[in-house]
């Protein structure tokens, strides 16, 4: 009787421990999510100011050529300056006027230039255009800068505050969905910086990783599991080494890539091509090990059945064993890929840690990757980059969740296909 009581108590206690640990894990996870989201959600909006731009013919095209090659050299900055001065006619003096123009992002003149390029007929007309505000204005509008603080403790002084409040009263300043963040590369100005460059860099690197490590990994696993002679010293040695490689710190692979791919083969530095190659070195052991495990778990009777009706060994393996093992192989591959996506150390070593403004167009263009972009931004003190760091983490997490759901989906699909 006593025995039963203590046994039941033991079971109950064990269940409690389990529930407690899961609760703790969920709590910490939600803490992480809450802190990232609360810091980062504002990054999905950007502040814009409406300016009435006069596309003056005198400035843009004094000789009436209508030729873009000539127009593109005009002083678009002057358009912005004139427009702002017009809005605040009372501001006088060079330094004050310069300060006034600073509430507009320096990207405004490029925006106007692109606008004129696409609408060459607007020359000579006036048009209301929303342009990006400077990052300090952006921070103020989003509430990250406290207006009640004494003037010397905030980045926006009383005069600037007065201008912004004037704009607010006229409804000339507003928050929009942050398209810039998703369509541009890195920038030293936080309001102009975006995640696309790093995203494409990661995508290129991961494609290279997948292209290299998936076929090589599966081929290795199939050979070692199904075709290699058993109890062969060399094969055992290879197997031990593959298992060891899975545990090697990733930065070592980066150094290997630096020594071999960059210094010996002289491939381009900072390129997703090399990044992908290094990441596939890192991913291969994971793929090989998980593929072998799932190949091993296929009942041998299936292979025997195929051999029994006269299938050759290759046919038996590829028609029957591999399809059954496929869900496991794919899951292993995607977990390996997800690890590669979050990896930064080996990419640092091969130079993918550069400040790159352009969006990479091919796998040999210099690029950076999502985790590295996060690292770079988190290292920048400006408030505008703090929210962008959190936003970039969210993009990375969404990417990861997407990949993991893909793994689950493929697993379910293949399991259904084979019944």
């Amino acid at each position: 009787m006593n025995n039963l009581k203590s046994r039941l108590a033991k079971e109950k206690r064990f269940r409690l421990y389990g529930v407690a640990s899961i609760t703790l894990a969920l709590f910490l996870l939600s803490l992480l999510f809450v802190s990232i989201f609360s810091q980062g959600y504002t990054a999905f909006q950007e502040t814009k100011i409406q300016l009435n731009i006069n596309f003056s013919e005198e400035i843009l095209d004094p000789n009436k050529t209508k030729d873009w090659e000539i127009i593109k050299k005009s002083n678009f900055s002057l358009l912005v300056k004139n427009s702002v001065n017009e809005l605040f006619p009372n501001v006088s003096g060079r330094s004050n006027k310069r300060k006034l123009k600073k509430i507009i992002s320096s990207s405004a003149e490029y925006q106007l230039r692109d606008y004129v390029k696409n609408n060459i007929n607007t020359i000579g007309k006036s048009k209301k255009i929303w342009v990006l505000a400077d990052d300090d204005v952006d921070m103020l509008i989003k509430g990250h800068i406290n207006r009640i603080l004494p003037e010397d403790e905030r980045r926006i002084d009383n005069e600037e505050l007065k201008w912004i409040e004037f704009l607010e009263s006229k409804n000339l300043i507003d928050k929009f969905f942050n398209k810039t963040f998703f369509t541009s590369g890195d920038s030293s100005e936080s309001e102009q910086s975006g995640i696309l460059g790093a995203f494409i860099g990661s995508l290129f690197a991961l494609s290279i990783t997948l292209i290299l490590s998936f076929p090589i990994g599966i081929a290795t696993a199939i050979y070692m599991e199904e075709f290699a002679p058993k109890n062969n010293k060399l094969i055992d040695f290879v197997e031990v080494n593959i298992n060891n490689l899975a545990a090697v710190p990733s930065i070592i692979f980066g150094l290997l890539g630096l020594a071999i791919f960059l210094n010996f083969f002289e491939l381009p530095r900072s390129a997703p091509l090399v990044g992908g190659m290094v990441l596939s070195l890192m991913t291969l052991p994971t793929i090989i090990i998980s593929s072998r495990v799932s190949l091993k778990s296929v009942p041998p009777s299936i292979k025997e059945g195929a051999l029994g009706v006269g299938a050759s060994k290759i046919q038996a393996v590829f028609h029957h064993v591999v399809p059954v093992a496929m869900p496991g192989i794919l899951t292993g591959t995607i977990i390996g890929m997800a690890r590669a996506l979050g990896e930064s150390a080996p990419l640092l070593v091969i130079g993918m840690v550069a400040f790159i403004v352009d969006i990479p167009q091919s796998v040999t263009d210099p690029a950076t990757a999502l985790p590295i972009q996060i690292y770079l931004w988190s290292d920048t003190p400006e408030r505008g980059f703090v929210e962008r760091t959190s936003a970039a983490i969210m993009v990375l997490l969404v990417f990861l969740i997407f990949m993991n759901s893909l793994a689950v989906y493929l697993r379910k699909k293949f399991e259904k296909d084979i019944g």
Partner: protein
Amino acid sequence: MNNDDLIKETEFQINNSETVGNIHVEDPRIIVKNINVRYGEKLAINNVSIDIGKNEVLAMIGPSGCGKSTFLRCLNRMNDTIESCVVDGELYLDNENILDEKTDVVPLRAKVGMVFQKPNPFPKSIYENVAYGPKIHGLAKNKIELDEIVFNSLEKAGLFNEVKDRLDAPGTSLSGGQQQRLCIARTIAVSPEVILMDEPCSALDPIATAKVEELIYELKENFTIVIVTHAMQQAARVSQRTAYFHLGNLVEVGPTQKIFTTPQHKLTESYITGRFG
């Protein structure tokens, strides 16, 4: 005779025995001459010779580990898949020594089909299970011919009426007995000459067993069948000749009726009367 004496006598007889009974038949399809099988150091089959006739069912009985399955697997060289296994001797199928290294096992296994102890349908549809063999051997020129082969095989295996409405269902969704008949249909779909059955009913219930036995009886019209079984009644029911194996030796061969009523060898008698095994 107590057990120790029996074992001693067994060993004596085995070391000094030749197969009792007539190993030859008039019109043999398979001729086995002096086969030895080793797993590493261990001798699993010791100098076995036997003929297997056309359109007969040969049952192989014997206690566990006596080598009957190993012998069966020699007939279509399934032992090749076991690395430590070495087979020597001569084994003629249609006057061709199939143990010759030059023999291609792929057509051989199409000629000598095999049904395994545990039903092992492929994790594919019922149709695909039967169609797989004809497909890889190129037996059907088009879909219509393939359909015909599949339907015929299922018909011959007595399964067609049960599954004709759900040919796309996975083979693994069938019951154990149906699965085993599906495996038989899969085997006969490549029109073999010989069918090897390794305890095909050991995982089945009595009703499913009866159906498979009935099937074996019908199949004998067109195929040579070699069946390994633990159930002596089964051997008595389905076979014309019976071979008794003991510790790697072929102890006695003879017409089934004779083996079960008047066995010549003491070991055979002990086994069929249930003294060991």
